């Protein structure tokens, strides 16, 4: 299914949207299409908002952000996010925030995926996080009497996962850092999978341990090579660190950020046009080969 159709059918105004991926496999292609289609009032949730949510905040898609670490990984700040929260001039409309730690967000997805109302964890005592976010609560263990932290389930309306490969039915395989994508997908009402390569079902069946998301929970499969750029896809392309560094200067200046969105997001019809504007990506970022040894699934 083309990205345009997947977003138009499965992402609605007001939705809680999760585009997961910890540094790795972040689906910028889907975020850009959501901006192009002018979605509004979204609650954007993910552990690390990264550049993609900074762009979506700047484009006015977001009403609220749910997160645990809002920075430019390895570089510095997300300035559209900061302007919105610090309410500086040039910022977008005030952004509501709901903040956890990574463990808290992981636990929220785990509860959502297991269809439990909350998840207990030993955390947050002594910190100011429960004061900043009253949804972080305390429960008493019925067996030991210990006071434990509790975080509420997170059940997104739609989760978008980028992966190396899937078959047409959405059986999805990924390798390298897998983050919290499995839990986020199982927690979600709808799931869009975006892949570097569409493969035959027989390829999936030849290595079933590598399947992270089964087709039965997937609503749409989109083939979008380089769809995670400027993040990376292990075995396909490296992170475009130059762009992450450049984002510091682009996002710091609202006018520059608008020009970026006009040129590379709103000003292109789709991902292939985005890539056509950046010749030389493959020469710069294509992954070297490091093949696994393979295993015998025979019996």
């Amino acid at each position, binding site marked *: 299914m083309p990205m345009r159709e997947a977003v138009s059918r499965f992402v609605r105004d007001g939705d809680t949207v999760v585009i997961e991926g910890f540094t790795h496999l972040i689906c910028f292609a889907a975020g850009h299409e959501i901006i192009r289609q002018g979605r509004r009032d979204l609650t954007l949730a993910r552990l690390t908002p990264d550049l993609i949510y900074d762009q979506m905040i700047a484009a006015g898609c977001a009403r609220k952000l749910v997160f645990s670490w809002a920075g430019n*990984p390895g570089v510095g700040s997300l300035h559209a996010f900061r302007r919105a929260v610090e309410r500086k001039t040039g910022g977008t409309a005030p952004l509501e925030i709901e903040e956890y730690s990574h463990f808290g967000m992981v636990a929220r997805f785990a509860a959502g995926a297991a269809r439990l109302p909350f998840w207990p964890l030993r955390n947050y005592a002594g910190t*100011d996080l429960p004061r900043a976010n009253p949804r972080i609560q305390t429960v008493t263990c019925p067996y030991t009497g210990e006071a434990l932290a509790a975080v509420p389930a997170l059940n997104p309306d739609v989760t978008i996962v980028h992966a190396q490969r899937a078959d047409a039915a959405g059986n999805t395989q990924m390798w390298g850092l897998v983050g919290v994508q499995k839990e986020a997908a199982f927690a979600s009402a709808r799931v869009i999978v975006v892949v570097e390569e569409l493969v035959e079902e027989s390829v999936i069946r030849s290595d079933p341990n590598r399947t992270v998301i089964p087709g039965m929970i997937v609503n749409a499969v989109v083939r979008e090579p380089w769809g995670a750029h400027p993040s990376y896809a292990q075995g396909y392309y490296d992170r475009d660190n130059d762009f992450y560094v450049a984002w510091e200067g682009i996002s710091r200046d609202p006018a520059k950020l608008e020009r970026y969105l006009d040129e590379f997001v709103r000003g292109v019809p789709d991902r292939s046009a985005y890539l056509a504007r950046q010749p030389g990506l493959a020469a710069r970022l294509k992954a070297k080969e490091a093949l696994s040894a393979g295993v015998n699934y025979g019996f």
Partner: protein
Amino acid sequence: MAAVAASELADGEVVFVGIGLPNLACNLARATHAPNLVLIYESGAVGAVPERLPVSIGDPALVTGSLMVCGMADVFQLFLQNGRIEVGFLGGAQVDRYGNINTTVIGPYERPAVRLPGSGGAAEIAVHARRTLIVAKLNPRAFPEQVDFITSPGQRCRGTARRELGMPGAGPVKVITDKAILAADETTGEMVLAALYPGVSADEVQAGVGWPLARASRLGAVAPPSGEELRLLREVLDPKKLYLRG
């Protein structure tokens, strides 16, 4: 700082590694006295042997050749909360008298003067790692008597000791700065001056700290990095000076 941090790690220890200086310190330790150090990154790489200096905590070089890659639910539940992490490295915009760390906001939470990135995995690392090491440059604004926001708990949080709060780990035992090492006093939990870098006076350290700094009963002296450590840092581990500035 990287060499001092490296010297705090023992061979065979399991370390939860943050990006930047901690990463450099861990790889220096691995190249010198601690070849069997196990590096775990919150991104899910276990036993990582990065061939290049990772540009972020989720760098693909952490995956290639590692012992295991797991999901983040496993990182936090099966490794960290399970008690498998011996050392956690933390940094922060503010570190206070009791080793509480702020990486959330400068100013009031509802209307911050500066919005920082937030906890990431730091809150739970400070709770669960058997001990944590804080790495930060001395500066009175970075070392206030009390942080604006407690993101990661130290030895005492607003008057209550961490043990009373049910935290399994020992918390921040040392703060490695660019001029001295501070250490948590075993009785009071307060960060006190424990050792000076060569050529640094106690007054200079006090000038970078926003509370009256007590001294450990025996003040140590930090040895300067060896020629081999400097060579490894400058020529092998960070030749592009991504983290080795100043």
